[in-house]
């Protein structure tokens, strides 16, 4: 063959191949999400807000800020190491609130004169033990994470304000009792607002810890982006355990940890609990030597009920998410964490009512497909697989069985529950076993309509209400109107699992 002709042919074949290759696959501009403004996100991450209102804080808390695990809030040295922050979006420079976020001390209706007020320089500067320091930390923390999720592209439900009570009273009069409550008021459309209440007046008070505010904001954020459809409806209605509750805790922890760029949460508040040696975090998304690294350790039912704890499954879940985040950051060290957060929170927004770990995995894959052209499908699946979770489980050959009896609750007039034994007769495990109570004709109300028990191994049983077994509060519960004749009122008990047929037991009161 003529050498020059062959070179020309090679040349044109090359052009042909290159043009074919350039039209294969999908462009990120077609299948990916809109690009993020990374510089603004980095600024928010560093709390670089533009404002004339200045505050002095130790973030995230005195322990993590100083590195001193023995530090307490009233240590005088803390006053000398406060950092300067700017407070964004204040409605007026003299009050820690805006149209959405309202910081209080005890209750929603606190007298304004009792609340934090800036000094003559216009600064919110208080000693760490001072309750006004807590108010300042509350406002700054929640404003910062609110700005972050908005910059990621999430609009949140501001139809009602968020009230934050940094030293609430009412449920306990013991100042050493530490707690944090979040009320979304999903069932009360006429509520004044959402409420976050912190309790405790200790050397390590929750109000001094940004981790607490970021975690609790996570609950509000998750309810908001899921349009309050109830991803933990059964937990909201009193179930001891549910996978939806675990997902709630998981995502709340993940959000706080990711924005902190720190794979653990709660070293400060953990100082209030004897279970935690000084300096140990409350929970960790990074692998440690414990029994929370594998799905089999956290979600299998055991007779003591140890795994009926939303925080165990939630912490395992946060480690899966952290693994996904770590992979994405490895691919893109400068911006990956922001894209990881956007993907994970977007997945959360499409979770169904009474969600499960299976639902979360599916949602993550879908979110990745729509926002990242699906380039992390394998990483996501691998993250779950490596921590012991597979969504491909064998179908149960036979339905679960249940034997039980009705029991009237003497302490609660008109209320009843069930003593029961649920058995898995199969050689396979039953995934996400739940007991559901339904009222076919509305003659009674299912007050606690569903309880979850995790996965049930082959040949294993769940026993509730019998002496030596789990107490009856782990059962579903109904209530009748005693002024009416309730005899003969029909009910349906249903035993459900993700990989098996429903077992339905009809009965009558």
């Amino acid at each position, binding site marked *: 063959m003529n050498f020059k002709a062959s070179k020309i042919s090679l040349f044109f074949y090359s052009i042909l191949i290159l043009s074919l290759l350039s039209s294969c696959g999908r462009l990120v*501009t077609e299948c990916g999400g809109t690009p993020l403004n990374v510089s603004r996100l980095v600024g928010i991450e560093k709390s670089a807000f533009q404002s004339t209102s200045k505050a002095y804080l130790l973030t995230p808390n005195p322990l993590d800020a100083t590195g001193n695990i023995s530090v307490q809030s009233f240590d005088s040295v803390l006053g000398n190491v406060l950092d300067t922050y700017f407070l964004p979006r204040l409605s007026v420079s003299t009050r820690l609130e805006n149209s959405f976020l309202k910081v209080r001390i005890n209750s929603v209706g606190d007298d304004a004169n009792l609340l934090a007020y800036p000094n003559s320089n216009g600064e919110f500067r208080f000693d760490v033990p001072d309750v006004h320091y807590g108010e300042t930390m509350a406002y700054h923390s929640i404003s910062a994470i609110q700005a972050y999720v908005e910059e990621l592209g999430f609009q949140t439900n501001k139809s009602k304000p968020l009230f934050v009570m940094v030293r609430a009273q009412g449920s306990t009069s013991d100042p050493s009792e530490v707690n944090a409550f979040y009320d979304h008021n999903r069932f009360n459309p006429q509520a004044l607002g959402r409420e976050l209440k912190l309790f405790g007046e200790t050397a390590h008070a929750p109000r001094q810890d940004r981790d607490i505010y970021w975690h609790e904001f996570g609950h509000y954020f998750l309810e908001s982006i899921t*349009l309050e*459809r109830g991803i933990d409806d059964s937990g909201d209605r009193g179930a001891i355990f549910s996978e939806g509750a675990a997902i709630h805790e998981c995502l709340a922890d993940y959000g706080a940890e990711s924005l902190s760029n720190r794979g653990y949460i709660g070293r400060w508040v953990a100082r209030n609990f004897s279970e935690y040696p000084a300096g140990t975090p409350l929970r960790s998304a990074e692998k440690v030597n414990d029994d929370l690294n594998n799905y089999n350790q956290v979600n299998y039912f055991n007779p003591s009920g140890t795994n009926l704890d939303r925080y165990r499954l939630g912490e395992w879940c946060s480690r899966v998410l952290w693994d996904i985040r770590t992979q994405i950051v490895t691919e893109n060290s400068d911006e990956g964490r922001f894209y990881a957060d956007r993907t994970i929170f977007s997945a959360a927004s499409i979770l169904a009512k009474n969600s499960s770990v299976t639902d979360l995995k599916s949602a993550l894959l879908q979110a990745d497909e729509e926002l990242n052209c699906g380039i992390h499908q394998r990483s996501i699946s691998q993250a779950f697989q490596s921590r012991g979770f597979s969504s491909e489980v064998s179908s149960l050959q036979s339905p679960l069985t249940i034997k039980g009896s009705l029991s009237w609750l003497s302490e609660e007039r008109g209320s009843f529950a069930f003593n029961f034994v649920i058995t898995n007769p199969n050689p396979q495990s039953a995934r996400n076993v739940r007991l559901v109570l*339904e009222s076919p004709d509305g003659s009674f109300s299912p007050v606690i309509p569903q309880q979850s028990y995790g996965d049930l191994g082959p040949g294993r049983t769940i026993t509730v209400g019998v002496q030596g077994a789990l107490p009856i509060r782990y059962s579903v519960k109904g209530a009748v109107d005693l002024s009416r004749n309730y005899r003969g009122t029909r009910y349906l008990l249903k035993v459900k699992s993700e990989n098996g047929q429903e077992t339905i037991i009809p009965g009558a009161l």
Partner: protein
Amino acid sequence: MNFKLFKKIKWIIVVVFVGIVVWVNSTVTKKLWLSSGSEQAGLVSRVRKTSSSQFSGTEPYTDKRANTVALDSTLQYMQEHPQDFPIKEYHQLKGETLESPMGTLVSYKFYQENIPIVGFQIDFRVSRTGKVVLISKSYYPLPKLHLDNKEWLSIDEILQSQDNVYRLSDEKEKLTVSNAIIWVDPVSQWAQLAYVVPVFSLLSKKKVPEQAIFSVTTGQLLAREHSKSEFDRFKKP
């Protein structure tokens, strides 16, 4: 052809040609996509102009910040699938939207004569390409309830009828009939008028606040909404 000249400039030709191909893929294709999107926007505009609705007389009232295009798309979707959305004319819908990276989230909540129906909700996602995706639906054609409040119990009467197992968690909160809701069990398809009352259960050692839902006519406990409480399980040092 002057092969020497060709030899010199061939790689320039290749680069230019590949660049043209890439530009065509990204830019022209994108424009074609946008024009189809515009067509859809035009369709939504036509729907908006007609304004008549199967939900006769109950035009969805919306937050002025809402994404009206997404609302229109989802309303049109429901109109096109009446067998899946048999919404009664005496139920009002309130549509709310939230923007997210995966599109616009649209939620419809329901009312009868301005009383919220808790338990009914329809959620959609309108993707960035305009596709309407149903996320969840909880609705059935509930018969119209009679909302005459002459026989309603007071909240004090209800708490007493519960053997004082509950007490108000916030004594300062004014509780009036405006706290009334229509509580629906969409699984079993029954509904009752109810109060939502912020309480503590005196049976619980740790008094975690909750919202108790009581029938307004019988005082029967229908449901409870529990707070998310973080540290109940821990002991003090």
